[in-house]
Protein backbone atom coordinates (compact mmCIF):
# COMPACT_ATOMS: atom_id res chain seq x y z
CA UNK A 1 0.00 0.00 0.00
CA UNK A 2 1.22 3.46 -0.83
CA UNK A 3 0.68 5.78 2.08
CA UNK A 4 -1.57 8.75 1.61
CA UNK A 5 1.37 11.08 2.25
CA UNK A 6 3.32 9.70 -0.68
CA UNK A 7 0.25 9.91 -2.86
CA UNK A 8 -0.32 13.56 -2.05
CA UNK A 9 3.38 14.32 -2.47
CA UNK A 10 3.43 12.69 -5.94
CA UNK A 11 0.28 14.56 -6.79
CA UNK A 12 1.81 17.89 -5.82
CA UNK A 13 5.09 17.27 -7.61
CA UNK A 14 3.20 16.31 -10.75
CA UNK A 15 1.09 19.43 -10.50
CA UNK A 16 4.15 21.68 -10.23
CA UNK A 17 5.87 19.97 -13.18
CA UNK A 18 2.83 20.18 -15.41
CA UNK A 19 2.23 23.82 -14.58
CA UNK A 20 5.89 24.62 -15.23
CA UNK A 21 5.77 22.92 -18.61
CA UNK A 22 2.61 24.77 -19.58
CA UNK A 23 3.80 28.16 -18.39
CA UNK A 24 7.20 27.71 -20.04
CA UNK A 25 5.60 26.90 -23.39
CA UNK A 26 3.21 29.81 -23.18
CA UNK A 27 6.03 32.06 -21.99
CA UNK A 28 8.31 31.28 -24.91
CA UNK A 29 5.46 31.75 -27.37
CA UNK A 30 4.52 35.08 -25.81
CA UNK A 31 8.12 36.21 -25.90
CA UNK A 32 8.44 35.53 -29.63
CA UNK A 33 5.11 37.13 -30.43
CA UNK A 34 5.83 40.12 -28.25
CA UNK A 35 9.28 40.64 -29.75
CA UNK A 36 8.08 40.54 -33.36
CA UNK A 37 4.91 42.52 -32.76
CA UNK A 38 6.64 45.17 -30.64
CA UNK A 39 9.18 45.81 -33.38
CA UNK A 40 6.83 45.20 -36.29
CA UNK A 41 3.49 46.73 -35.38
CA UNK A 42 4.72 50.38 -35.58
CA UNK A 43 5.66 49.75 -39.22
CA UNK A 44 2.13 48.61 -40.11
CA UNK A 45 0.22 51.54 -41.48
CA UNK A 46 -2.21 51.12 -44.38
CA UNK A 47 0.42 52.14 -46.95
CA UNK A 48 2.54 49.21 -45.88
CA UNK A 49 -0.15 46.83 -47.10
CA UNK A 50 -1.12 48.81 -50.18
CA UNK A 51 2.28 49.61 -51.71
CA UNK A 52 4.62 47.18 -53.38
CA UNK A 53 8.22 47.04 -52.18
CA UNK A 54 10.62 49.65 -53.57
CA UNK A 55 14.38 49.69 -53.56
CA UNK A 56 14.78 45.98 -52.74
CA UNK A 57 12.28 46.32 -49.93
CA UNK A 58 13.98 49.13 -48.06
CA UNK A 59 11.00 51.35 -48.79
CA UNK A 60 7.40 50.98 -49.85
CA UNK A 61 5.16 48.17 -48.62
CA UNK A 62 4.67 44.48 -49.13
CA UNK A 63 1.61 44.26 -51.40
CA UNK A 64 3.22 42.10 -54.08
CA UNK A 65 4.45 39.64 -51.47
CA UNK A 66 0.97 39.40 -49.96
CA UNK A 67 -0.43 38.65 -53.41
CA UNK A 68 2.39 36.14 -53.93
CA UNK A 69 1.68 34.40 -50.63
CA UNK A 70 -2.03 34.06 -51.38
CA UNK A 71 -1.49 32.90 -54.96
CA UNK A 72 1.07 30.28 -54.02
CA UNK A 73 -0.96 28.91 -51.11
CA UNK A 74 -4.11 28.84 -53.19
CA UNK A 75 -2.45 26.87 -55.99
CA UNK A 76 -0.96 24.45 -53.47
CA UNK A 77 -4.30 23.81 -51.79
CA UNK A 78 -6.28 23.61 -55.02
CA UNK A 79 -4.02 20.78 -56.16
CA UNK A 80 -3.26 19.04 -52.89
CA UNK A 81 -6.67 19.06 -51.20
CA UNK A 82 -8.69 17.10 -53.78
CA UNK A 83 -5.78 14.77 -54.46
CA UNK A 84 -5.08 14.17 -50.78
CA UNK A 85 -8.70 13.72 -49.73
CA UNK A 86 -9.29 11.48 -52.73
CA UNK A 87 -6.32 9.32 -51.80
CA UNK A 88 -7.51 9.08 -48.21
CA UNK A 89 -10.98 8.02 -49.35
CA UNK A 90 -9.43 5.47 -51.67
CA UNK A 91 -7.25 4.04 -48.92
CA UNK A 92 -10.03 3.91 -46.33
CA UNK A 93 -13.13 3.10 -48.35
CA UNK A 94 -12.19 1.60 -51.66
CA UNK A 95 -9.43 -0.85 -50.82
CA UNK A 96 -8.80 -3.23 -48.05
CA UNK A 97 -5.34 -3.53 -46.53
CA UNK A 98 -3.52 -4.71 -49.61
CA UNK A 99 0.01 -4.39 -50.84
CA UNK A 100 -0.94 -1.29 -52.85
CA UNK A 101 -2.50 0.52 -49.90
CA UNK A 102 0.49 -0.37 -47.74
CA UNK A 103 2.89 0.97 -50.36
CA UNK A 104 0.94 4.21 -50.70
CA UNK A 105 0.81 4.64 -46.95
CA UNK A 106 4.51 3.89 -46.57
CA UNK A 107 5.24 6.38 -49.33
CA UNK A 108 3.24 9.17 -47.73
CA UNK A 109 4.79 8.48 -44.33
CA UNK A 110 8.24 8.77 -45.87
CA UNK A 111 7.32 11.95 -47.74
CA UNK A 112 5.99 13.47 -44.53
CA UNK A 113 9.45 13.20 -43.00
CA UNK A 114 11.38 14.64 -45.93
CA UNK A 115 12.80 18.15 -45.26
CA UNK A 116 11.18 20.86 -47.34
CA UNK A 117 14.43 21.79 -49.06
CA UNK A 118 14.36 18.38 -50.77
CA UNK A 119 10.92 19.15 -52.14
CA UNK A 120 12.36 22.47 -53.27
CA UNK A 121 15.16 20.73 -55.08
CA UNK A 122 12.74 18.31 -56.70
CA UNK A 123 10.46 21.17 -57.74
CA UNK A 124 13.39 23.08 -59.16
CA UNK A 125 14.64 20.15 -61.22
CA UNK A 126 11.21 18.87 -62.29
CA UNK A 127 8.83 21.83 -62.61
CA UNK A 128 11.23 24.73 -63.13
CA UNK A 129 13.76 23.10 -65.46
CA UNK A 130 12.37 19.86 -66.88
CA UNK A 131 8.81 21.05 -67.48
CA UNK A 132 10.21 24.46 -68.30
CA UNK A 133 7.74 26.29 -66.10
CA UNK A 134 10.46 28.56 -64.76
CA UNK A 135 10.35 30.21 -61.37
CA UNK A 136 6.65 30.75 -61.14
CA UNK A 137 3.54 30.62 -59.00
CA UNK A 138 2.68 27.32 -60.69
CA UNK A 139 6.08 25.69 -60.05
CA UNK A 140 6.09 26.88 -56.46
CA UNK A 141 2.44 25.97 -55.84
CA UNK A 142 2.88 22.46 -57.22
CA UNK A 143 6.02 21.97 -55.14
CA UNK A 144 4.19 23.08 -52.02
CA UNK A 145 1.30 20.82 -53.00
CA UNK A 146 3.67 17.85 -53.04
CA UNK A 147 5.05 18.95 -49.70
CA UNK A 148 1.70 19.21 -47.92
CA UNK A 149 0.09 16.21 -49.61
CA UNK A 150 1.20 13.70 -46.94
CA UNK A 151 -0.27 15.87 -44.17
CA UNK A 152 -3.57 16.19 -45.97
CA UNK A 153 -3.72 12.47 -46.69
CA UNK A 154 -2.93 11.39 -43.16
CA UNK A 155 -5.23 13.90 -41.42
CA UNK A 156 -8.05 13.01 -43.83
CA UNK A 157 -7.42 9.32 -43.24
CA UNK A 158 -7.53 9.84 -39.49
CA UNK A 159 -10.75 11.82 -39.81
CA UNK A 160 -12.35 9.11 -41.96
CA UNK A 161 -11.11 6.39 -39.64
CA UNK A 162 -13.00 7.85 -36.68
CA UNK A 163 -16.37 7.61 -38.46
CA UNK A 164 -18.23 4.70 -36.84
CA UNK A 165 -18.54 1.59 -38.97
CA UNK A 166 -22.30 1.58 -38.35
CA UNK A 167 -22.78 4.64 -40.57
CA UNK A 168 -21.42 2.67 -43.49
CA UNK A 169 -23.36 -0.44 -42.52
CA UNK A 170 -26.59 1.55 -42.30
CA UNK A 171 -26.01 3.38 -45.54
CA UNK A 172 -25.29 0.15 -47.40
CA UNK A 173 -28.24 -1.61 -45.81
CA UNK A 174 -30.52 1.19 -47.04
CA UNK A 175 -29.39 0.58 -50.58
CA UNK A 176 -26.70 3.24 -50.75
CA UNK A 177 -23.84 2.72 -53.18
CA UNK A 178 -20.27 3.04 -52.00
CA UNK A 179 -19.99 6.49 -53.51
CA UNK A 180 -23.24 7.63 -51.89
CA UNK A 181 -22.03 6.22 -48.60
CA UNK A 182 -18.83 8.24 -48.91
CA UNK A 183 -20.43 11.50 -49.98
CA UNK A 184 -23.52 11.38 -47.78
CA UNK A 185 -22.37 9.84 -44.54
CA UNK A 186 -18.60 9.73 -44.34
CA UNK A 187 -17.50 13.06 -45.75
CA UNK A 188 -20.07 15.19 -43.89
CA UNK A 189 -18.84 13.74 -40.62
CA UNK A 190 -15.17 13.80 -41.59
CA UNK A 191 -15.11 17.35 -42.93
CA UNK A 192 -14.08 19.05 -39.68
CA UNK A 193 -11.02 16.79 -39.41
CA UNK A 194 -10.18 17.12 -43.09
CA UNK A 195 -10.55 20.88 -42.87
CA UNK A 196 -8.22 21.04 -39.89
CA UNK A 197 -5.57 19.21 -41.91
CA UNK A 198 -6.00 21.66 -44.77
CA UNK A 199 -5.65 24.65 -42.46
CA UNK A 200 -2.51 23.12 -41.01
CA UNK A 201 -1.20 22.82 -44.55
CA UNK A 202 -2.12 26.40 -45.35
CA UNK A 203 -0.02 27.42 -42.36
CA UNK A 204 2.93 25.38 -43.59
CA UNK A 205 2.61 26.82 -47.10
CA UNK A 206 2.53 30.37 -45.81
CA UNK A 207 5.57 29.77 -43.64
CA UNK A 208 7.70 27.85 -46.14
CA UNK A 209 10.85 29.59 -47.47
CA UNK A 210 13.51 27.20 -48.75
CA UNK A 211 11.33 25.29 -51.19
CA UNK A 212 9.66 28.50 -52.35
CA UNK A 213 12.86 30.37 -53.18
CA UNK A 214 13.99 27.43 -55.32
CA UNK A 215 10.75 27.12 -57.27
CA UNK A 216 8.85 30.42 -57.23
CA UNK A 217 11.84 32.73 -57.17
CA UNK A 218 12.05 35.94 -55.20
CA UNK A 219 10.80 38.56 -57.63
CA UNK A 220 9.28 41.67 -56.13
CA UNK A 221 7.32 42.50 -59.27
CA UNK A 222 3.54 42.18 -59.00
CA UNK A 223 2.61 38.84 -60.65
CA UNK A 224 0.35 38.89 -63.68
CA UNK A 225 -0.20 35.20 -64.35
CA UNK A 226 0.40 31.72 -62.95
CA UNK A 227 3.72 31.76 -64.76
CA UNK A 228 4.99 34.90 -63.04
CA UNK A 229 7.72 34.49 -60.45
CA UNK A 230 6.82 35.83 -57.03
CA UNK A 231 8.14 36.40 -53.56
CA UNK A 232 6.09 35.33 -50.56
CA UNK A 233 6.00 37.22 -47.29
CA UNK A 234 8.07 34.59 -45.52
CA UNK A 235 10.72 34.71 -48.22
CA UNK A 236 10.63 38.50 -48.12
CA UNK A 237 11.13 38.46 -44.37
CA UNK A 238 13.99 36.02 -44.74
CA UNK A 239 15.76 38.01 -47.43
CA UNK A 240 15.30 41.36 -45.70
CA UNK A 241 16.75 40.01 -42.47
CA UNK A 242 19.36 37.70 -43.94
CA UNK A 243 20.87 40.22 -46.31
CA UNK A 244 20.58 43.03 -43.79
CA UNK A 245 18.46 45.11 -46.13
CA UNK A 246 16.12 46.52 -43.52
CA UNK A 247 15.40 45.08 -40.11
CA UNK A 248 12.55 47.51 -39.70
CA UNK A 249 10.80 46.27 -42.84
CA UNK A 250 11.61 42.68 -41.90
CA UNK A 251 9.84 43.07 -38.58
CA UNK A 252 6.94 44.78 -40.30
CA UNK A 253 6.62 41.81 -42.64
CA UNK A 254 6.93 39.44 -39.70
CA UNK A 255 4.17 41.19 -37.81
CA UNK A 256 1.98 41.16 -40.93
CA UNK A 257 2.63 37.41 -41.30
CA UNK A 258 1.58 36.77 -37.72
CA UNK A 259 -1.59 38.78 -38.26
CA UNK A 260 -2.29 36.91 -41.48
CA UNK A 261 -1.94 33.51 -39.82
CA UNK A 262 -4.12 34.74 -36.97
CA UNK A 263 -6.81 35.90 -39.38
CA UNK A 264 -6.68 32.68 -41.40
CA UNK A 265 -7.03 30.57 -38.26
CA UNK A 266 -9.83 32.67 -36.82
CA UNK A 267 -11.72 32.60 -40.08
CA UNK A 268 -11.20 28.85 -40.37
CA UNK A 269 -12.47 28.30 -36.85
CA UNK A 270 -15.49 30.44 -37.48
CA UNK A 271 -16.32 28.55 -40.66
CA UNK A 272 -15.86 25.22 -38.95
CA UNK A 273 -18.10 26.11 -36.02
CA UNK A 274 -20.72 27.41 -38.37
CA UNK A 275 -20.60 24.16 -40.32
CA UNK A 276 -20.84 22.03 -37.20
CA UNK A 277 -23.75 24.08 -35.84
CA UNK A 278 -25.63 23.93 -39.12
CA UNK A 279 -25.39 20.16 -39.29
CA UNK A 280 -27.69 19.98 -36.25
Amino acid sequence: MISNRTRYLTQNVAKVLIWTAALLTIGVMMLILFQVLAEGLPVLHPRFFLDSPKNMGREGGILSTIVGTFALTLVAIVFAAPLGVGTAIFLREYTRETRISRIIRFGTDCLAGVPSIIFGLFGFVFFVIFLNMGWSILSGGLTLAAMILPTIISTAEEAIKTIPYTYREVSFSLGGTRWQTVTRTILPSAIPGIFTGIILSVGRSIGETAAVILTAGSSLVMPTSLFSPIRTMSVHFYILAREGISMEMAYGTGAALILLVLIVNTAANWLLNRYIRHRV
Partner: protein
Amino acid sequence: MQELNTKIEARGLNFYYGSVQALKNINIHIKERQITALIGPSGCGKSTFLRALNRTNELIPHTRTEGSVMLDGEEIYRPGLDVVGLRQRVGMVFQRPNPFPKSIYENVAFGPKVLGIYSRREIEEKVEKSLKAAALWSEVADRLHTSALNLTLGQQQRLCIARVLAVEPEVILMDEPCSALDPIATLKIEELMQELKKRYTIVIVTHNMQQAARTSDWAGFFLLGELLEYGPTADLFTRPKDKRTENYVTGRYG
Protein backbone atom coordinates in the same frame (compact mmCIF):
# COMPACT_ATOMS: atom_id res chain seq x y z
CA MET B 1 -54.79 -21.93 -42.06
CA GLN B 2 -53.92 -20.85 -45.55
CA GLU B 3 -50.77 -22.03 -47.24
CA LEU B 4 -47.92 -19.62 -46.49
CA ASN B 5 -45.50 -18.46 -49.12
CA THR B 6 -41.80 -18.88 -48.54
CA LYS B 7 -40.13 -15.48 -48.72
CA ILE B 8 -36.57 -16.49 -48.00
CA GLU B 9 -35.01 -19.88 -48.29
CA ALA B 10 -31.48 -20.77 -47.24
CA ARG B 11 -29.96 -24.02 -48.44
CA GLY B 12 -26.70 -25.43 -47.15
CA LEU B 13 -25.53 -22.00 -46.04
CA ASN B 14 -22.01 -21.89 -44.63
CA PHE B 15 -20.17 -18.79 -43.56
CA TYR B 16 -16.57 -18.30 -42.53
CA TYR B 17 -14.72 -15.49 -40.75
CA GLY B 18 -11.24 -16.32 -41.98
CA SER B 19 -10.89 -19.96 -41.01
CA VAL B 20 -13.57 -19.83 -38.31
CA GLN B 21 -16.87 -21.27 -39.48
CA ALA B 22 -19.71 -19.19 -38.02
CA LEU B 23 -22.64 -20.76 -39.92
CA LYS B 24 -22.87 -24.49 -40.53
CA ASN B 25 -25.17 -25.87 -43.17
CA ILE B 26 -28.18 -23.68 -42.45
CA ASN B 27 -31.45 -24.76 -44.10
CA ILE B 28 -34.50 -22.67 -43.43
CA HIS B 29 -37.75 -21.48 -45.01
CA ILE B 30 -38.80 -18.03 -43.81
CA LYS B 31 -42.49 -17.40 -44.42
CA GLU B 32 -43.90 -14.29 -45.98
CA ARG B 33 -45.65 -11.75 -43.73
CA GLN B 34 -44.78 -13.66 -40.63
CA ILE B 35 -42.51 -12.85 -37.75
CA THR B 36 -39.64 -15.26 -37.42
CA ALA B 37 -37.65 -15.14 -34.20
CA LEU B 38 -34.10 -16.41 -33.99
CA ILE B 39 -32.86 -17.30 -30.56
CA GLY B 40 -29.73 -18.87 -29.17
CA PRO B 41 -26.79 -18.14 -26.90
CA SER B 42 -24.35 -15.35 -27.61
CA GLY B 43 -21.91 -16.02 -30.41
CA CYS B 44 -23.94 -18.77 -32.06
CA GLY B 45 -24.22 -16.92 -35.36
CA LYS B 46 -27.61 -15.21 -35.29
CA SER B 47 -26.32 -11.82 -36.39
CA THR B 48 -24.10 -13.43 -38.96
CA PHE B 49 -27.12 -15.25 -40.38
CA LEU B 50 -29.15 -12.04 -40.59
CA ARG B 51 -26.33 -10.29 -42.41
CA ALA B 52 -26.13 -13.19 -44.84
CA LEU B 53 -29.69 -12.38 -45.90
CA ASN B 54 -28.87 -8.90 -47.21
CA ARG B 55 -25.26 -9.59 -48.12
CA THR B 56 -23.74 -7.13 -45.66
CA ASN B 57 -21.48 -9.89 -44.34
CA GLU B 58 -19.30 -9.43 -47.34
CA LEU B 59 -18.40 -5.90 -46.24
CA ILE B 60 -16.33 -7.55 -43.53
CA PRO B 61 -12.84 -8.39 -44.82
CA HIS B 62 -11.62 -12.00 -45.09
CA THR B 63 -15.00 -13.67 -45.05
CA ARG B 64 -16.52 -16.36 -47.26
CA THR B 65 -20.06 -17.51 -47.96
CA GLU B 66 -21.07 -20.91 -49.37
CA GLY B 67 -24.45 -22.30 -50.21
CA SER B 68 -27.57 -20.62 -51.36
CA VAL B 69 -30.09 -18.03 -50.23
CA MET B 70 -33.20 -17.42 -52.28
CA LEU B 71 -35.40 -14.37 -52.02
CA ASP B 72 -38.75 -15.02 -53.72
CA GLY B 73 -37.07 -17.98 -55.38
CA GLU B 74 -34.22 -15.91 -56.78
CA GLU B 75 -30.65 -16.69 -55.77
CA ILE B 76 -29.16 -13.67 -54.00
CA TYR B 77 -25.60 -14.96 -54.22
CA ARG B 78 -25.83 -15.28 -57.97
CA PRO B 79 -22.92 -13.49 -59.65
CA GLY B 80 -24.01 -10.23 -61.16
CA LEU B 81 -26.93 -9.76 -58.78
CA ASP B 82 -27.74 -6.12 -58.04
CA VAL B 83 -26.57 -6.08 -54.41
CA VAL B 84 -27.66 -2.49 -53.85
CA GLY B 85 -31.16 -3.39 -55.00
CA LEU B 86 -31.17 -6.48 -52.79
CA ARG B 87 -30.29 -4.41 -49.73
CA GLN B 88 -33.12 -2.06 -50.51
CA ARG B 89 -35.52 -5.01 -50.53
CA VAL B 90 -34.11 -6.50 -47.35
CA GLY B 91 -33.81 -3.75 -44.73
CA MET B 92 -32.07 -4.00 -41.41
CA VAL B 93 -32.60 -2.59 -37.92
CA PHE B 94 -29.59 -2.87 -35.67
CA GLN B 95 -29.07 -3.70 -32.02
CA ARG B 96 -28.07 -0.22 -30.98
CA PRO B 97 -30.23 2.61 -32.30
CA ASN B 98 -27.91 4.22 -34.82
CA PRO B 99 -29.42 7.31 -36.41
CA PHE B 100 -27.10 9.42 -38.52
CA PRO B 101 -25.99 12.66 -36.85
CA LYS B 102 -28.51 14.51 -38.98
CA SER B 103 -32.01 15.81 -38.44
CA ILE B 104 -34.96 13.46 -37.97
CA TYR B 105 -36.18 14.38 -41.42
CA GLU B 106 -32.81 13.79 -43.08
CA ASN B 107 -32.51 10.40 -41.44
CA VAL B 108 -35.73 9.14 -42.93
CA ALA B 109 -35.12 10.91 -46.22
CA PHE B 110 -31.70 9.27 -46.59
CA GLY B 111 -32.99 6.08 -48.19
CA PRO B 112 -35.35 7.68 -50.71
CA LYS B 113 -32.61 10.14 -51.65
CA VAL B 114 -29.97 7.49 -52.33
CA LEU B 115 -32.54 5.59 -54.36
CA GLY B 116 -32.77 8.61 -56.63
CA ILE B 117 -35.97 10.35 -55.59
CA TYR B 118 -35.43 14.06 -56.02
CA SER B 119 -38.91 15.52 -55.78
CA ARG B 120 -39.10 17.32 -52.46
CA ARG B 121 -42.80 16.69 -52.15
CA GLU B 122 -42.43 13.00 -52.77
CA ILE B 123 -39.69 12.76 -50.16
CA GLU B 124 -41.74 14.70 -47.64
CA GLU B 125 -44.65 12.33 -48.21
CA LYS B 126 -42.43 9.31 -47.70
CA VAL B 127 -40.95 10.77 -44.53
CA GLU B 128 -44.38 11.41 -43.07
CA LYS B 129 -45.74 8.04 -44.12
CA SER B 130 -42.75 6.15 -42.72
CA LEU B 131 -42.77 8.04 -39.43
CA LYS B 132 -46.48 7.34 -39.08
CA ALA B 133 -45.95 3.66 -39.86
CA ALA B 134 -43.22 3.55 -37.23
CA ALA B 135 -45.59 5.12 -34.70
CA LEU B 136 -43.29 8.07 -34.21
CA TRP B 137 -45.00 10.81 -36.19
CA SER B 138 -47.07 12.29 -33.36
CA GLU B 139 -44.00 12.58 -31.18
CA VAL B 140 -41.74 14.31 -33.69
CA ALA B 141 -43.99 16.07 -36.19
CA ASP B 142 -43.20 19.47 -34.74
CA ARG B 143 -39.44 19.01 -34.66
CA LEU B 144 -38.56 17.16 -37.84
CA HIS B 145 -35.58 19.37 -38.46
CA THR B 146 -33.93 18.97 -35.09
CA SER B 147 -31.15 16.48 -34.46
CA ALA B 148 -32.14 12.84 -34.29
CA LEU B 149 -29.59 12.38 -31.53
CA ASN B 150 -31.81 14.34 -29.12
CA LEU B 151 -34.50 11.66 -29.23
CA THR B 152 -34.75 9.02 -26.51
CA LEU B 153 -33.24 5.64 -27.35
CA GLY B 154 -36.70 4.16 -27.87
CA GLN B 155 -37.63 6.97 -30.25
CA GLN B 156 -34.28 6.60 -32.02
CA GLN B 157 -34.97 2.93 -32.60
CA ARG B 158 -38.40 3.68 -34.04
CA LEU B 159 -36.71 6.32 -36.18
CA CYS B 160 -34.35 3.64 -37.47
CA ILE B 161 -37.37 1.51 -38.31
CA ALA B 162 -38.97 4.47 -40.10
CA ARG B 163 -35.71 4.95 -41.99
CA VAL B 164 -35.90 1.36 -43.20
CA LEU B 165 -39.60 1.63 -44.06
CA ALA B 166 -38.89 4.69 -46.20
CA VAL B 167 -37.03 2.56 -48.76
CA GLU B 168 -40.09 0.28 -48.96
CA PRO B 169 -38.40 -3.04 -48.30
CA GLU B 170 -40.11 -6.40 -48.38
CA VAL B 171 -38.20 -7.97 -45.54
CA ILE B 172 -37.08 -6.31 -42.32
CA LEU B 173 -34.23 -7.88 -40.38
CA MET B 174 -34.06 -6.84 -36.75
CA ASP B 175 -30.99 -7.67 -34.71
CA GLU B 176 -31.94 -7.45 -31.03
CA PRO B 177 -33.82 -4.21 -31.68
CA CYS B 178 -34.97 -3.84 -28.09
CA SER B 179 -31.87 -4.75 -26.14
CA ALA B 180 -31.00 -1.11 -25.49
CA LEU B 181 -34.55 -0.12 -24.64
CA ASP B 182 -36.68 0.01 -21.49
CA PRO B 183 -39.82 -2.17 -21.15
CA ILE B 184 -42.21 0.54 -22.33
CA ALA B 185 -40.17 1.33 -25.43
CA THR B 186 -39.83 -2.41 -26.00
CA LEU B 187 -43.58 -2.85 -25.86
CA LYS B 188 -44.02 -0.06 -28.41
CA ILE B 189 -41.65 -1.80 -30.81
CA GLU B 190 -43.44 -5.11 -30.32
CA GLU B 191 -46.81 -3.52 -31.07
CA LEU B 192 -45.27 -1.91 -34.08
CA MET B 193 -43.99 -5.27 -35.29
CA GLN B 194 -47.50 -6.71 -35.18
CA GLU B 195 -48.65 -3.78 -37.28
CA LEU B 196 -45.76 -4.12 -39.75
CA LYS B 197 -46.32 -7.84 -40.11
CA LYS B 198 -49.36 -7.11 -42.26
CA ARG B 199 -47.10 -5.82 -44.99
CA TYR B 200 -43.60 -7.05 -44.30
CA THR B 201 -41.74 -10.25 -43.58
CA ILE B 202 -39.90 -9.77 -40.30
CA VAL B 203 -36.93 -11.71 -38.96
CA ILE B 204 -35.96 -10.77 -35.44
CA VAL B 205 -33.04 -11.88 -33.31
CA THR B 206 -33.72 -11.70 -29.61
CA HIS B 207 -32.29 -12.86 -26.31
CA ASN B 208 -35.60 -12.33 -24.64
CA MET B 209 -37.54 -15.61 -24.56
CA GLN B 210 -40.80 -13.91 -23.59
CA GLN B 211 -40.39 -11.54 -26.48
CA ALA B 212 -39.81 -14.38 -28.92
CA ALA B 213 -42.79 -16.30 -27.56
CA ARG B 214 -45.05 -13.23 -27.51
CA THR B 215 -44.26 -11.76 -30.88
CA SER B 216 -43.22 -14.44 -33.30
CA ASP B 217 -45.03 -16.96 -35.45
CA TRP B 218 -41.96 -19.02 -36.23
CA ALA B 219 -38.88 -19.58 -34.16
CA GLY B 220 -35.44 -20.97 -34.82
CA PHE B 221 -32.88 -22.03 -32.26
CA PHE B 222 -29.23 -21.55 -33.16
CA LEU B 223 -26.40 -23.29 -31.38
CA LEU B 224 -22.71 -23.03 -32.29
CA GLY B 225 -23.42 -21.97 -35.84
CA GLU B 226 -26.12 -24.55 -36.49
CA LEU B 227 -29.85 -24.12 -36.78
CA LEU B 228 -30.76 -26.82 -34.31
CA GLU B 229 -34.50 -26.55 -34.42
CA TYR B 230 -37.00 -24.54 -36.40
CA GLY B 231 -40.78 -24.54 -36.41
CA PRO B 232 -43.92 -22.75 -35.29
CA THR B 233 -43.16 -20.73 -32.18
CA ALA B 234 -45.72 -22.54 -30.06
CA ASP B 235 -44.12 -25.90 -30.86
CA LEU B 236 -40.60 -24.72 -30.21
CA PHE B 237 -41.50 -23.32 -26.83
CA THR B 238 -43.93 -25.96 -25.63
CA ARG B 239 -42.88 -29.14 -27.42
CA PRO B 240 -39.25 -28.77 -28.38
CA LYS B 241 -37.90 -31.80 -30.18
CA ASP B 242 -34.34 -31.32 -29.07
CA LYS B 243 -33.29 -31.53 -25.44
CA ARG B 244 -30.87 -28.63 -25.92
CA THR B 245 -33.65 -26.41 -27.25
CA GLU B 246 -35.76 -27.27 -24.28
CA ASN B 247 -32.96 -26.45 -21.88
CA TYR B 248 -32.42 -23.12 -23.57
CA VAL B 249 -36.02 -21.96 -23.78
CA THR B 250 -36.68 -22.96 -20.21
CA GLY B 251 -33.58 -21.10 -19.07
CA ARG B 252 -31.64 -24.18 -18.03
CA TYR B 253 -28.96 -23.77 -20.63
CA GLY B 254 -25.56 -23.18 -19.19
